[in-house]
Each structure stands twice: as structure tokens, then as C-alpha cells.
């Protein structure tokens, strides 16, 4: 499981960066075209003054999913090499706390609905980022399906007994 999850999240990090770096969709009507990247929506929402919507979309589609990938890597890269990272309990706890707020899969459905909605009004041209994003969702879903936190917690506990890993107690008195 550890090897697979490590591999999955290395791939996910690459796909996530690609998804954010290239055009997502282009929409053309009567010779006018408008191109959007992954974060264009957040930018426009912010400019229009819809701060709450902007923050919600930013958190659920960028910050939380990206943090999850990074936390997975920070945890599983050392675990793969047989070490339990010193802040493993904090990382795994944070991971479990933020999980419900990562909504990339829901966002993908939103993309599909929008495409169907817009296709009648003009031409939709999918960008590189749309494909990498779809691949990202698939690979993350696979990662989610094989992830089990219990064995990780057991390894953390063993490392805590040896004094290699911090416990949480000092942080929260």
C-alpha cells in the first residue's frame, strides 16, 4: 500500500501542476474566444467582489487538494524508505481533518455540466489541462480506494514508543 500510494501521489503532484499550468477550456462564440485556466474562476469571482465564493472555490479545489497531495508525499516518501517522519501524527491528523473539504471530484462533475450547458451556445475547445485533470481525478480515486490509515497509525505508535516520533500532547495542553 505504501509503495503504491507514494507512486500515486508523485503522479498526482505532476498532474496537479500540469492541470494548473495549461489552459483548461476555451470557449468560442461568433469569433470571440475566452480562455480559462483552472484558477480563472477564482480570479473573476474575486474581482467581482464575490469573496466568499472565491475563497470557497480556492480552498476546495486548490488549497485542500494540493495540501493533501503534499502531506501524502511528506508521509509516504519516508515511510517508503523505512522511516517514520517525526511529525507523522500531525501530518496524518491534518490529512484526515481536511479530507471532507477537498472536492476535486465534485468539481469534475461541475466541469462536465458546464460543458453540456455551453456547448449549445458556442464551441468548446478542451485544453491539455482538462485531460490531465481527468487523469488526476482517476488516480486520486484509486489512491483513496487503497488508502488505509490504521496500519500507518500502528507504525507511528511503534515509532512513538521508541521515542522517534513526537506525540501530540505537548502541542495541546
Amino acid at each position: 500500500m505504501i509503495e503504491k500510494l507514494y507512486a500515486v501521489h508523485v503522479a498526482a503532484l505532476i498532474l496537479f501542476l500540469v492541470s494548473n499550468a495549461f489552459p483548461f477550456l476555451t470557449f468560442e462564440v461568433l469569433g470571440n474566444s475566452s480562455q480559462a485556466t483552472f484558477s480563472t474562476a477564482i480570479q473573476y469571482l474575486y474581482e467581482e467582489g464575490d469573496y466568499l465564493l472565491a475563497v470557497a472555490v480556492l480552498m476546495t479545489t486548490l488549497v485542500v487538494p494540493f495540501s493533501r497531495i503534499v502531506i501524502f508525499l511528506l508521509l509516504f516518501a519516508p515511510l517508503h524508505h523505512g522511516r517514520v517522519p517525526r511529525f507523522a501524527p500531525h501530518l496524518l491528523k491534518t490529512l484526515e481533518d481536511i479530507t471532507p473539504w477537498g472536492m476535486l471530484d465534485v468539481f469534475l462533475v461541475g466541469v462536465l455540466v458546464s460543458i453540456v450547458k455551453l456547448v449549445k451556445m458556442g464551441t468548446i475547445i478542451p485544453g491539455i489541462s482538462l485531460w490531465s485533470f481527468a487523469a488526476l481525478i482517476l488516480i486520486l480515486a484509486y489512491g483513496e480506494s487503497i488508502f488505509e490509515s490504521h496500519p500507518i497509525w500502528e507504525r507511528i505508535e511503534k515509532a512513538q514508543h521508541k521515542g522517534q516520533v513526537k506525540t501530540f500532547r505537548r502541542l495541546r495542553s
Partner: protein
Amino acid sequence: MRAINRNLGCCPTCRQLVTFPPKKGGEVAAYCPRCGSEVHLRKSHSLQNTLALVIASIIFYIPANLLPMMHVQTFAGTESDTIMSGVIYFMETGSYLIGSVIFIASILVPVLKILILLYLIHTVRHHKAAKPKERQKLYLLTEVIGRWSMVDVYVVSIMLALVHFGGLTEIRAGGGAVFFLLVVILTMLAAMSFDPRLIWDTAKEQHA
């Protein structure tokens, strides 16, 4: 025999069993030695918190449906779309699949979630013992389906990003989108603050 009678609690994060100091009452908190999370024998004020959040989401659900989700501005004028008018549009133009996705995600799921949570609060508060397994499943359902309501918020934001032709043709988010977002967040928080162990407490009490 229940864990609470033995002063044992399960850590909500890492599932570690935590022994509580022998003390009466359900308000005791301890910290999990493994991951540091606060462990409660039962979440304190779970019913009050859940009920408060559910009531807030019911209130916000009204403007979420009445106010437009988005304004579509073209050279012909400005058109406003509510959740329901969007569903009707898809149904009339023959996109039944998309129409039902939006209907399920934006109308059915939030209403179902609110009703399930109200039902669970009601049964726990009145010490109903019947069908704990089924109620547990209902609770799990609310946790799983909750996030999918965000679809409509995303649709608005994606449409707004793509239909952006500098003033002439533009889509702007309406007030309904903000309220709808709040409904989604509040119902998610409500489901999280409900303690499903309460279902089993009342179930067991009556058998004892």
C-alpha cells in the same frame, strides 16, 4: 456492554481506544495519546449544535432557491437563472441526464440531508429505540452525499470563467450562489457535529 460504561472512548481521528478517568456524566474530554485529538465519550452538545446548524441551513436554503444563481448578460439584455429554472431549462431542451444531476445535487441532496438530520435529532431526543442500524446508515449517507451539492456552485464559477467577453457578454454570480454555498457548508458541519453513537445509546437504554 458499551464502551462508555467502561470509560472507554474511541479517538475520532485514529480510532485508538482511550481510557477516561472514572467520572460521571458525558462531558468528559481526554486527549488521544497517539494523535493528540480531543476524544469525547460523546460529543458535547451534539444535538444542540446539529439542530442549530440545520435550522441555519433551512433559513439559508430559502434565498438560495429564490435568488438567482447567476446573471447572464448579453447584448439582448440580462437573464437570471435560479436553481429550479436551470433544471427546467435542461429538462425542456432534452438534456435529461444533466437535468437530473443538477436536480439531485442541488435540490434532492440538501433537502434529504436536512430531513435526515432532523429525523435523527428527533429520534435521539425522544429516546426512540427502533431501527438503529437503519438510522446509522442514514447518517453515513448524509456524510457521503453532502459534498456533491457543491456541483452547482462550481458550475456557476466555471460558466463565469468561460463566458467572459469583456462587458458585452458576461456571466456574474448571483446572491443565490452565496446562500447555496452556505447551505452546503452548514449542512456538512451539521452532519459532522452529530454524534452517531447517540443513536445506539437510546437503542440500548430501552433494552436494558
